[in-house]
């Protein structure tokens, strides 16, 4: 892996992630509109939104930590991108495994929390406290799913998992229940409708984003794209055999992103403790069942 090859991948992977993320967000908004029998946003709408926010003339900041939070946010996901196995590019996947990835995905949420904390807006703080509670809620089933998968594959290195799936069968077929529980957990991770309490517009004025304006909000949209990309890639590499070529990788990503959106549109919003109770009951139960099966299979 020569030096500039790595450097190229370091630049290319996040860029690619951003582009795919944009189209994923577009797909989500389009599907949402279509289900609501609306026309839906034009083709490059997410890009226009981001650029418009970046070129806003006034960028309100509440302090250095506010900016640092946003930078940490972007940095966290960009780092995560480099460790994700993508067809054709290996990046640093050999240097860090799935546990590193889980923790790398927690760094942005902490960054956002710090940034919002500096804004001294209670709506933001309530939003963050709900976001962290939701994180606690969805991370437990997700961790059980990860534990089950790693136990089944016997390794925590993503590239090896993909290779195993290529030789044997997809994770989805060998661990259907775990895959289902994983899907619900991912749905909650994306922060979509039923579990979207921390962005409740009417109640706490979009929670953490209450004081985010201009490029701060733009960066949050960028983060959203990267987040959707990371989560879907993680899920595909765990259960859908990762991408052999780009042509089968991207449809998988869109499929994985599509299912949660379909559920999101038709659901109202849970209260915080209902989010906790629901996520700790059904997906965790399913995940533990799947884990038991994996363990029993030996």
């Amino acid at each position, binding site marked *: 892996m020569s030096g500039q090859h790595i450097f190229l991948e370091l630049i290319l992977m996040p860029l690619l992630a951003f582009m795919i993320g944009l189209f994923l967000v577009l797909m989500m908004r389009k599907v949402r509109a279509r289900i609501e029998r609306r026309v839906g*946003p034009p083709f490059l709408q997410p890009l226009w939104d981001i650029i418009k926010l970046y070129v806003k003339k006034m*960028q309100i900041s509440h302090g250095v930590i506010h900016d640092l939070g946003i930078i940490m946010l972007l940095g966290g996901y960009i780092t995560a991108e480099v460790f994700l196995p993508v067809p054709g590019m290996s990046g640093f996947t050999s240097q860090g495994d799935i546990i590193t990835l889980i923790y790398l995905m927690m760094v942005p949420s902490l960054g956002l929390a710090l940034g919002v904390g500096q804004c001294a807006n209670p709506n933001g703080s309530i939003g963050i406290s709900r976001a962290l509670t939701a994180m606690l809620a969805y991370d437990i089933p997700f961790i059980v799913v990860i534990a089950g998968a790693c136990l089944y594959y016997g390794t925590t290195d993503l590239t090896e998992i993909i290779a195993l799936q290529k030789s044997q069968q997809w994770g989805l077929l060998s661990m259907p229940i775990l895959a289902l529980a994983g899907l619900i957990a991912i749905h909650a991770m994306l922060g979509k409708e039923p579990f979207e309490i921390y962005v409740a517009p009417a109640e706490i004025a979009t929670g953490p984003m209450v004081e985010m304006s201009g490029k701060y909000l733009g960066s949050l949209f960028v983060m959203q794209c990267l987040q959707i990309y990371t989560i879907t890639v993680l899920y595909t590499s765990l259960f859908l055999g990762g991408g052999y070529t780009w042509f089968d990788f991207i449809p998988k990503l869109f499929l994985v992103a599509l299912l949660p959106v379909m559920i999101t549109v038709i659901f109202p919003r849970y209260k915080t403790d209902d989010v906790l109770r629901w996520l700790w009951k059904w997906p965790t139960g399913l995940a533990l069942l799947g884990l038991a099966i994996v363990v029993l299979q030996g």
Partner: protein
Amino acid sequence: MKDVIPIQTNNTETIAVSKNSKNIYQQAIDTFSNFCRARSLFVLHYCTGCGAIELPPAMTSRFDMERLGIQPMVTPRQADILLITGYVSIKTLKRVILTYEQMQGPKYVIGICSCTVNGGMYWQSYATAKVLSEYLPVDMYIAGCMPRPEAVLTGLQQLMKKIEKGEANSWENYFKRYDYYLGNQQHLFGDTWHTPTDILEEARHYHLYGAESTGNNTARLIKYTVEHDLTKLDAPLREKDSMTKRGKK
């Protein structure tokens, strides 16, 4: 959508931005950013009056604002357009001004319903502000005693065209002619009227600090802020001291 709704803008003169003062590179960016600004507008409809009921149908499946790239937003920080829908009572006008000042950069105000144009049905009432543009630079009025969603959408489309052409910069007047607006506001709310945002500071930030930005009205405001020592970063903290008369530090 043929009948064009009369659009008046009553601010007397807009300072024409001379095209060739910036270099080509700057111009390219401006046109591109105007292109994007036109394509993605975030709307904060401040339901001051009865006109707000027209907005939901504009967003939902029949008229679908989103296909134009317009999304409803909840806080002024994230909004570009401030829709004032319906009569503006004086008490609400204070909040409208506060919300307007909390918005960023290229921001547009659209007054819906005739009450914002000339007071409408409440033309002689003691409680409402008759003409909105005396207190805020208004880009566009959409007359009608609650214009239908099509009218709102056409209005928004025309605003998008203006933005694209780069002419929709009436927001700069608020900073350029702040004294005029502040006068009207002080006339309505009294001399001690001030908001947490420091408009003159922002004017300097936008490089729009012109001759007309200050006048005797702003002098009164500055006197008040200095006297209450509101100039510092954590101004209101000082205000607390003054109110409780705990001796000047």
